[in-house]
């Protein structure tokens, strides 16, 4: 399998399937395309007609969009969703909510792994979204949202990194469990070594 991703410092969508595949222990080749550079768009389009990362190539099958990739992986690796049907439905609901929502958080607290912006980006709308995430995480079984690591944790992994950057104090036990994952540490270390700086995501200097 080949997983096409963007910059590890900035691409929150890329982190989601990447961390899921790492935690599942699946062998895959990683193809990193630095975003927003001349030729970036064309290179992504050579993998996916949607022109966005992440993209998963599995033989002749191409799957795009983080949530579709997670569902695709879960067909072969059902442990990616909780085993209980009611838990699985809730896990899908919080994952889909993340997938289509939290636009203010995404805009004002964009993912920027190597930076520290304590106190920044806290508009009233962002604070309301943080309160909603707090409510979702507060129901965590521990150490992860539904006990063991699931696709829902993969969907919220970039939020954990945002809260680290913007010093948002929400559910410290869950944050700690996520940040202690070896795969999360690998992703953060790789983000630190990336040379590209994208002005549109360097919101606060």
């Amino acid at each position, binding site marked *: 399998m080949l997983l096409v991703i963007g910059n590890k410092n900035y691409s929150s969508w890329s982190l989601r399937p990447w961390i899921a595949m790492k935690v599942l222990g699946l062998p895959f080749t990683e193809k990193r395309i630095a975003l927003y550079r001349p030729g970036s768009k064309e290179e992504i389009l050579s993998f996916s*007609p949607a022109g966005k990362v992440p993209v998963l190539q599995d033989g002749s099958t191409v799957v795009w969009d983080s949530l579709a990739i997670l569902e695709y992986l879960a067909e072969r690796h059902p442990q990616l969703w909780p085993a209980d049907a*009611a838990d699985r439905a809730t896990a*899908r*609901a919080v994952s889909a909510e993340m997938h289509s929502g939290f636009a203010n958080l995404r805009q004002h607290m964009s993912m920027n792994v190597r930076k520290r912006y304590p106190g920044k980006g806290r508009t009233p709308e962002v604070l309301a979204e943080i309160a909603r995430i707090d409510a979702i995480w507060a129901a965590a079984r521990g150490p992860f949202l539904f006990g063991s690591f699931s696709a829902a944790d993969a969907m919220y992994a970039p939020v954990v990194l945002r809260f680290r950057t913007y010093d948002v104090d929400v559910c410290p036990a869950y944050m700690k469990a996520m940040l202690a994952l070896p795969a999360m540490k690998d992703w953060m270390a790789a983000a630190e070594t990336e040379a590209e700086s994208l002005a549109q995501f360097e919101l606060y200097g």
Partner: protein
Amino acid sequence: MSTSLRLVIGNKNYSSWSMRPWVLARQAGIAFEEVQLKFDDAGRPRGIESYGVAGRVPVLLIDGNPVWDSLAICETLAERFPEKQLWPADRLARATARSICAEMHSGFQALRSSMNMNIRSRHPGKGRTPESLRDIERIVAIWTSCRERFGAGGPLLFGRFTIADAYYAPVVTRFQSYAVSLPATAHAYCDAVLSLGAVREWMEAARRETEFVAADEPYASR
């Protein structure tokens, strides 16, 4: 003991997210009880507090337990009713169907905001921005590609009816409301969606609704 399903939806004229699981369940012959909440002027469903944890429609109550968000509801129904084959049976087709549904779920913001769903109204030519035109172009490319690659067994994206058609049904009604001219394959696909029994039923009910929701009416006044 059979499972009780209640689907909480918003106004049929405006709520594109509600239309998706409703059309899916109805067209597939999955029995459910409909609970309709009406939007206030800001587009918030009145009374959602008693059902929805996320404060939005749609919500599917399975024996009283809420599952929210249209995509999560569709996946959960697919899992609960495997005999209905709500996703394509072929693995490659299914992967593609999930990709285009997820693309719809998180994308096409320009189309959604400048051509919001408004089944009973006609605003030909409105809402065209460079961004919404790009969204339309991408949607036409998705439909054309699916019809060519997977559409041999019928008139829909993957031949027979699947979640993907329920997912793009609100887009079909938008193209009608805003009189978007389409190439032949996309046009024929729209006709096929508009002739689905569940889509017709939803649209007829939408036309009978009289509530005017200001947040969803950028091109009309009360």
